[in-house]
Each structure stands twice: as structure tokens, then as C-alpha cells.
């Protein structure tokens, strides 16, 4: 108790109190005192040096999504801190618990525009759940305690703690606080009122054409089992949001896959035609709903979310339910009556048999197309027994369409912000958190290059990450929009790519280029059978587009469908 601790020591000891095992970061002038204190704590906390701070933030995010624990990243002031911003915004949009610790110039230099000063508290305000600027060491323990508490409780999110260099060098007696004092923060796990549960149960019991829409909040509340019990008890089909993929097994007979802009047609039809929609832990954003005013026009929407600000933010909600997903489902389950819904499930089954994902697989017989790669990967991983981290674009949609996810947290993807460059660093974080898991990066040739230097981090940490690049020579999804909305004027989308296999080799990572359909499975097996990381460069057909597709701002009823299969 009486021993004085430096601010740097207090930071590491606080992290240890919070159970932090790994920190992703890159040192610089104003965070150096803290780095210098790390040698005292190197055993309990492992520091992963990144090549760019954006990577550190994505790694913390990937670690958090894969484990459910708080991910931690660290950077210096100025450009170090601003480089974190994209990663913080990614985590914020997808409600990922991350704590970012940044160095700041000494208090006496604040506001003087000195070397590497940036007001990261102001810059990060709209992309963090909360943030701090600490200029007095006496405020440091409480701020760190609160940062972790705020990041992981309620609706999780990133919290940034900016700490002046002098605070890190200063010293005081240190006791990690046992409690937080946050009078304005009420993250209690709420069970909705009995009357609300009664109303929800009545709506579900009386529904003729009910649908469940499950989001990531279900997994955050660890309510997958209860969700499945609800669906099976009343025979209600389950669609997920993109981030909800994995909360309900995609191979389940009641699964509608996922809906929205590139969702399956039968899923979107079911969402449009349902009479009661039970949305839980999903924020119902525009990529899921299409034009808000045209979404689920016949439905009374029940919206369960623990964030009151999500109620009616985008849609007119019949029954808003502010509550924890698990507690809500537990309260609801006894009151929901068994039901068959034969006509409704029959109708869905008819839509499903009309045009589904089989068509594109059956259609493109000779050329190497990404959907085929996704399905082969699914087979090769013992039907999806792995974690996939995708980047953003066409490959991300194909992965979600053709790879059936059956376990929670098995797809990590930047759904809200749509951050290209997310996949590789996020997979590094995820693999650090789950060393035994088979970890696959699937990225486009454009996005992969945004954070490609993190290949050195893969090697530095000796991570056995398998990387599949879906290489079509374009910023594919942007090119697809140019196809559909800009009369095929491909401005700024053709890519000048390196030889990805040679790039990997330069880092000491073996790789293989794949150009033929018949080599896909063998190449995946080779990657799996190689100890350590492996890179596969799938050089796919250039102009394949993702369908179904809903034009932005249009109704989900107006999908551009896939072509029909060639009849044999």
C-alpha cells in the first residue's frame, strides 16, 4: 500500500486486475514511460507490436469479438492516436468492447501545438462510448476502472483513455478501486415488465406469419439456446442480421439465413410478408431493412434491445421492449404456446425452393467463382468448425451467403462501418484470444492490401492464420455498383495488384495461387496441413456480382435476383 507506483505501473497493474493478457500497440514518445514500465509486468501481459495503429485497434476488436472479453490497444499521441480512429469507429458501430490507451503530450504542453499533439479526446468523442483525458495521476485508477466497466457492460463499446506523459511518470500510492462512481450510467441487465412480456407473448401466439430477427445482441447476452428454444417451441423461422450470423445455426430447418441488401430472396420475402416480427439484439439498420418506410409493411414489430435509443430510431415499432436478450427470452418462453404455422412455413419453403444459392453454384460450371470457394472451405473445415474473419465487399457477402455458420462468434466482420482492411488484423487478435481455433481470413484483393503489412505481426507472433484472398482484380463491390448504377464506367476500381504469393513469401509465409475450380479443395487442404500461416490467392472470375441485391434506398421487395440455373 505504502509503496509508490508510477502512472505507467498503475496502467499495467490495472490491466492485470482486469484480467488483460494481451495488449496490441506501437510505442512512441508520449507513451514511452508506460512501455518502459512494461518490463516489470511482461509475464502477465503480452505486448503485440503492430505495424500500424489501425491494426492495433482492429486486433483488440477481433480479440474482443472472438472471446467476449475486452480487447486492449495502445498508441502514442498525435498520429499514433489518430491512426486508431478507424478501428475505434469500427468497434463503436458494431458494439465491440475495446479499451484504447494513448499517450498525450505533458500537461504543460497541452494546447501549444507541440510535436505529436492531437486532441484525441475530441476526435474520438463521436466514435467511442466514452473517453477520458487524464492530466492528474490521482484520476488515473478510477478512469481505468471505469473504462473497462463501461466498455464491457450494457451495450458494449470502445473507451479511450488519453494519458499525459507526466501522469505516466508521476507516482502515487495505488489501490485499484473496487467500485465505480458513475451516476449517469445505468447498464443494469433489465427484465422487461410482466405486462410487456404478456403483450409480446400474445402477439407471437396470435401471429399467423411470425418471423424472428436475431442480431449480435443475442450472442452478447449468451442467449443462443433460449433463442433456439423459442423458435422451435412455436415453429417461428429465424432470420439474422449480418452480425447475428451464427446466433442461430444456418443449417437449422427454421433458419432463413440473413436478410437485407444481399440477403437470400426467401429471407427478404419472409421479412416483407410476416405479420409479426420479433427482432432481438439487432439494431435494424438500413442494410437490413432497405428503405425504412417499405420494410415489413404488414408486420407488427416487436423490438427487443437493451439500448433505449434503438427503439424507433429507424422504424415504427409496435412493441418496444427495453431489456436484456437472455432475461427477455427466459421470461417469454413459458408464455409462448407451441405452434405449427404449416401454411406459413410451407410458403417459405416454396420461396426457398424457387431460387436459392444452389443456382449460382450450378450455373457457373467452369470458371472459378468465389461462392464455390466459400462452399469448399465450409466442407474442408468439417462444415464450418472454424472462425472466419472477413473483410468488406463482395467476398464478405458471398462468405455470409455460402458458408453456413452454426456456432456463435464464428464470423467476425465489420458490419456497421464496413471497414476494408479489417480482416487480417482482426484475425490476429482473434487468434491471440483463441489460439486453438482454426482461423481463416477471407479478404478481397483491395481490402487485404490496406493492412497487408500486418503479415509481419502474424510471423512475429507465429500465428497459424490461414488467409484466402478473393482476387478479382477490382474493388469488386464498388465495381458492382458501377455495373448496376453507373453504366459500367469503372472509374478507380481496377487494381494493380502485387503477386500475393511472393508478398507472403517475403514475410516467410508459404502460399499458393489458385486459378482452377478443381484445385480449390486441395489448396485449402494444403493450407490446413501446413503448420503455421498460409496464404491462398484465389484468382477468381472478374465480373461475377453478388445477388440478390437491393439497390440502396429501395424496398427489399425489389430485389435483383440471381439468374436461374441452366437446366440439365
Amino acid at each position, binding site marked *: 500500500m505504502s509503496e509508490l507506483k508510477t502512472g505507467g505501473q498503475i496502467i499495467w497493474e490495472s490491466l492485470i486486475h482486469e484480467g488483460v493478457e494481451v495488449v496490441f500497440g506501437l510505442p512512441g514518445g508520449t507513451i514511452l514511460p508506460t512501455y518502459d514500465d512494461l518490463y516489470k509486468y511482461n509475464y502477465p501481459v503480452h505486448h503485440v507490436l503492430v505495424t500500424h495503429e489501425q491494426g492495433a485497434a482492429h486486433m483488440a476488436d477481433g480479440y474482443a469479438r472472438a472471446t467476449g472479453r475486452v480487447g486492449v490497444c495502445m498508441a502514442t499521441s498525435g498520429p499514433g492516436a489518430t491512426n486508431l480512429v478507424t478501428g475505434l469507429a469500427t468497434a463503436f458501430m458494431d458494439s465491440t468492447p475495446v479499451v484504447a490507451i494513448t499517450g498525450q503530450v505533458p500537461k504543460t504542453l497541452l494546447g501549444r501545438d507541440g510535436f505529436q499533439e492531437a486532441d484525441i479526446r475530441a476526435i474520438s468523442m463521436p466514435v467511442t*462510448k466514452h473517453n477520458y483525458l487524464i492530466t492528474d495521476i490521482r484520476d488515473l485508477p478510477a478512469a481505468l476502472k471505469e473504462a473497462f466497466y463501461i466498455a464491457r457492460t450494457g451495450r458494449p463499446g470502445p473507451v479511450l483513455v488519453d494519458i499525459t506523459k507526466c501522469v505516466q511518470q508521476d507516482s502515487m500510492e495505488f489501490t485499484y478501486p473496487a467500485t465505480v462512481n458513475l451516476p449517469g450510467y445505468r447498464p443494469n441487465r433489465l427484465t422487461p415488465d410482466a405486462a410487456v412480456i404478456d403483450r409480446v407473448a400474445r402477439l407471437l401466439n396470435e401471429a399467423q406469419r411470425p418471423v424472428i430477427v436475431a442480431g449480435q445482441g443475442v450472442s452478447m447476452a449468451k442467449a443462443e439456446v433460449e433463442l433456439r428454444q423459442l423458435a422451435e417451441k412455436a415453429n417461428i423461422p429465424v432470420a439474422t442480421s449480418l452480425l447475428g450470423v451464427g446466433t442461430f445455426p444456418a443449417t437449422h430447418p427454421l433458419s432463413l439465413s440473413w436478410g437485407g441488401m444481399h440477403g437470400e430472396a426467401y429471407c427478404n420475402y419472409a421479412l416483407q410478408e410476416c405479420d409479426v416480427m420479433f427482432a432481438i439484439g439487432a439494431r435494424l439498420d438500413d442494410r437490413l431493412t432497405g428503405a425504412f418506410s417499405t420494410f415489413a409493411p404488414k408486420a407488427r414489430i416487436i423490438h427487443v434491445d437493451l439500448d433505449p435509443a434503438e*427503439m424507433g430510431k429507424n422504424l415504427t415499432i409496435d412493441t418496444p421492449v427495453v431489456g436484456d436478450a437472455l432475461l427477455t427470452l427466459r421470461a417469454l418462453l413459458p408464455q409462448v404456446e407451441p405452434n405449427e404455422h404449416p401454411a406459413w412455413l410451407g410458403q417459405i419453403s416454396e420461396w426457398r425452393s424457387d431460387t436459392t444459392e444452389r443456382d449460382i453454384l450450378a450455373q457457373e460450371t467452369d470458371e472459378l467463382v468465389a461462392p464455390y470457394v466459400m462452399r469448399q472451405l465450409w466442407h474442408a473445415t468439417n462444415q464450418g468448425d472454424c472462425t472466419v474473419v472477413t473483410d468488406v465487399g463482395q467476398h464478405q457477402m458471398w462468405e455470409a451467403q455460402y458458408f453456413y455458420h452454426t456456432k456463435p462468434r464464428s464470423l467476425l466482420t465489420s458490419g456497421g462501418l464496413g471497414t476494408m482492411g479489417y480482416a487480417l488484423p482482426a484475425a490476429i487478435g482473434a487468434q491471440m484470444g483463441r489460439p486453438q481455433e482454426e482461423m481463416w481470413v477471407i479478404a478481397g484483393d483491395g481490402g487485404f492490401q490496406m493492412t497487408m503489412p500486418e503479415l509481419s505481426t502474424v510471423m512475429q507472433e507465429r500465428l497459424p492464420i490461414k488467409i484466402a484472398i478473393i482476387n478479382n482484380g477490382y474493388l469488386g463491390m464498388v465495381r458492382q455498383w458501377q455495373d448496376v448504377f453507373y453504366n459500367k464506367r469503372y472509374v478507380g476500381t481496377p487494381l494493380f495488384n502485387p503477386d500475393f504469393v511472393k508478398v507472403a513469401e517475403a514475410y516467410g509465409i508459404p502460399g499458393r495461387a489458385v486459378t482452377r475450380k478443381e484445385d480449390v479443395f486441395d489448396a485449402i487442404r494444403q493450407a490446413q496441413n501446413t503448420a503455421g500461416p498460409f496464404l491462398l490467392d484465389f484468382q477468381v472470375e472478374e465480373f461475377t456480382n453478388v445477388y440478390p441485391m437491393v439497390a440502396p434506398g429501395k424496398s427489399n421487395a425489389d430485389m435483383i435476383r440471381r439468374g436461374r440455373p441452366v437446366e440439365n
Partner: protein
Amino acid sequence: MTATQTKSHTIIAWLEDKPGVLNRVTGLFSRRNFNIESLTVGHSEVKGISRMTFVARGDERDLQQVETQLDKLINVVHIADVSQEPTVVREMALIKVATSGQTRGEIMQLVSIYHASVVDVDMTSLIIQIVAPEDRVDSLIKLLDNYGIEEMVRTGQVAMVRGSSRHGHSHSAATVAANGNGNGHHA
């Protein structure tokens, strides 16, 4: 979508008096595209808790978003829309009006009618202070404009619910802070 009806709402927010808190609030207004007509902030009766009154215009959805998004800010302790409650709402303005020997008397009459006061006089101008509901302030300004307003400052509206706090409608900072129940969380 239901037809939208926009109305002005008077909302009180209690904030922890922490650095950057006003930045958080105004940043949220601008980021969420909220339409704010006026905003004032100052100390409440409890140390460490500031009280902000703001007037926002919008339909029901807009207002619900303003309130719930603001309430999500960690340093916002409590928020209350008092538009439907009996309230005292006041704004203060200081108005410097050009005067001459001929006009001074007329202006003094207006000041008296509006229960305003003259707080500074010299040979060519007067500073008038008015504390009144917003529409009365507007109305006096419109009249004084005829004489030439040289300078003006308005505080924006502040509001307080009528009657004793003990009768249920408690909006005292002490009650609000105590009900925040974020205190002493074991975390």
C-alpha cells in the same frame, strides 16, 4: 410512417460537471442532426451537477431520439422533457438601444410596460434588461428595433417545474443524482 408533427420541447438535462461534457452534448446534437433552438447551462443546487435547459424542435421520433441518445452519454445523469408539465420558463436579454432626447421617454414607457429595466444610461444609448418568457422578449425586441438596436445578447431559456419537489415531480439535482443508481457499482 405516421404523419410527422413538429413541436418545440423544453428539456432539462442534469450533467456531471466534468471537462468536455458540453462538447459531448453539442457534438451529439450536431452528429445526430438534432435541431436545437436554444441551450443554456449552469450550476444546479448540487455541487458537481450542472443543469442544462434546451429547446428542441421535432416530431415525436426526433424528440425521443434526442432524449435517449443524450441519456446514453455517460456524464448525463438524468433528462426530463418538461413540456407537458406546469413550468416557469424564462429568458433574459440585454438590449442596447440608440436614444436621443426625443425617444428616451417613449423607450422608458415600453420598458415599464414590459416590466423590463434600464441598467445603463448614457447620452446616446440605453441598456435594457428583460427577464420574461421568450415571446415577450421577442415582442419587446421587435418594438425596440424601431429605435435602432446597437447590440443584443440573449441567454436562451431556462425552465423549472412549478410546485414543491416533494409532490412527486422532483427535478432537483439531488434526487436525480441519488436515483442515478450508478453509484458504488461493484465492477
